[in-house]
């Protein structure tokens, strides 16, 4: 029943553990602990394999490192938003479409000669607006967010094809903008640094800020949070907006990286993002999870993809493997939680 082991006999009173012990205990309590350990093991195996067979398994090649660090952020940014929303007890299936339509907005406005900073602002605002509309529809009419966002996903996909046809739209911003978002220092990629920064931001928000406290509360037990005095609707709306904004962030960074937007971009990202969150230890029922878990989940998904590419597996293996990792992670988390 009690997990401390400190006061089982009722003798010992206040006992605040010393830092290293406390930190490791706190870490092991984090639902992300399992996945971080698995991620580290996978990395270790890949690195060792890369060193043993540098010609056959080019994991450690500069090119592969760059690819890896460039690719993780795309799913990572989205997963942060989706994760914040999942912690608040809601889903957003429209983030893939939001990703694409914000990218389109960015590219088309820029193509029309509008300064890039304003284009970015417009793309972010559009993301936030889509999130808020999702939240409003779901909360105002008490429809599960899963259904509402399935609807907005289809509406947005239609709108994307209506606006762009099937054409790919170029985006060629000034070099400073390109450097800022997607430049590189050695093999380190700017977008990965941005992802780390956003992850730290999400950690500060979720674990150290009042808003985060309320996000966990409305996701963990909405009725109780309401009875205690948490502003449930406002908190959930915030989370919906965060999901939209992060989808737009991912869209902006990805569009800058590939210098164009294609209307079929972003398809399937919503489910990959949810998969990353679930692998990272977030509960589908809300109220549980951490920024570290989301980051680790996204990292692991992309590592698996990367390894499959390196060993020359056919493209259709990727989805199947992500599916397997997802199911395995959920089972593992369930077992670990029961044992805890």
């Amino acid at each position: 029943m009690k997990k401390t082991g400190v006061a089982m006999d009722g003798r010992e009173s206040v006992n605040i553990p010393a830092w290293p012990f406390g930190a490791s205990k706190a870490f092991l309590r984090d639902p992300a602990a399992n996945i971080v350990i698995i991620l580290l093991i996978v990395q270790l195996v890949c690195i060792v394999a890369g060193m043993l067979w540098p010609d056959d398994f080019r994991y450690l090649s500069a090119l592969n490192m760059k690819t890896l660090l460039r690719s993780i952020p795309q799913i990572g940014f989205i997963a942060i938003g989706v994760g914040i929303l999942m912690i608040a007890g809601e889903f957003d299936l429209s983030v893939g479409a939001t990703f694409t339509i914000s990218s389109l907005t960015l590219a088309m406005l820029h193509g029309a000669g509008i300064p890039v900073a304003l284009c970015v602002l417009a793309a972010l605002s559009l993301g936030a607006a889509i999130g808020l509309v999702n939240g409003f529809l779901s909360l105002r009419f008490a429809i599960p967010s899963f259904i509402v966002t399935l609807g907005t996903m289809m509406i947005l996909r239609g709108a994307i094809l209506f606006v762009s046809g099937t054409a790919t739209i170029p985006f060629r911003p000034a070099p400073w903008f390109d450097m800022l978002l997607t430049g590189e220092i050695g093999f380190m990629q700017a977008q990965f640094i941005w992802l780390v920064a956003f992850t730290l931001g999400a950690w500060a928000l979720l674990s150290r800020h009042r808003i985060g406290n309320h996000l966990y509360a409305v996701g963990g037990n909405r009725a109780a949070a309401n009875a205690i005095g948490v502003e449930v609707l406002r908190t959930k709306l915030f989370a919906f907006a965060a999901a939209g904004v992060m989808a737009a962030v991912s869209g902006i960074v990805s569009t800058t990286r590939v210098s164009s937007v294609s209307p079929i971009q972003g398809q399937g990202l919503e489910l990959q993002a949810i998969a990353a969150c679930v692998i990272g230890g977030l509960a589908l029922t809300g109220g549980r999870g951490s920024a570290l878990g989301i980051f680790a989940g996204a990292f692991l998904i992309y590592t698996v993809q990367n390894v499959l590419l390196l060993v020359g597996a056919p493209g259709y293996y990727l989805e199947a493997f992500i599916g397997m990792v997802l199911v395995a992670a959920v089972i593992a988390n369930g077992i670990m939680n029961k044992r805890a």
Partner: protein
Amino acid sequence: MISNTHDAPLLRLAGVGKIYGRTAALSDVDIEIRKNEVLGLLGDNGAGKSTLIKILSGVLPRSSGTFEAGGHPADIRSRHDSAALGIETIYQDIALVGPMPIWRNMFLARELCSRLGFLRCAEMRRTTIEILHRGVEISGVDDPDAEVASLSGGQMQAVAIARAVHFRSKMLLLDEPTSALSVRETENVLKYMVDLRDEGVSSVFVTHNLYHAFQVCDRFVVMSHGRKVADVAKKDTSIEALTRLIVAH
């Protein structure tokens, strides 16, 4: 009207009613909740007890009637109003968030924050440890990081009560607080109510169990079909008399 604020009741309700559509869930209820007392709110299912508790705790607006707190006119329209009057509600389906640790529950919606809204975690954990140790005879929990979902029903109820007490409430509203508890945990909650009364925190105790009510209450209000049908001091009644009152109406 002469009102002496020293002897005035903590809260006085006059003519309070609640109408849902065409049904009157409460009509014309006058109740006083005094200082240093445990008031038993009794009645069969559908008597209006829970409606009354919801109105007092600010989650349900009343349709009619007036409030007076400490002799002065008052109003309860929201959870914020009731908190300002020092009213805290302990629900039967305990209002705690399971996946969160005790200390976060303790300060939920009343977080200690920096000006930018960042949590003062260390301070809140420390205070939670103090709170848990003060109520330790009932809770048997002393780890502020323990997840609330891992506690027993009685421990959760203890955390909820400790939270209410810490935030200096003058009055606890307990809606069937013991319905999910073991016998021993129930005894602890009942004892806690009496201890709190002696420390100056009044309680309104809603229960179906007349033995529990008789054990701790100083006064009883019996409700039936949304109306108050009796208001008696413990010394003027008995369990049998109360049972007759509840069944008769």
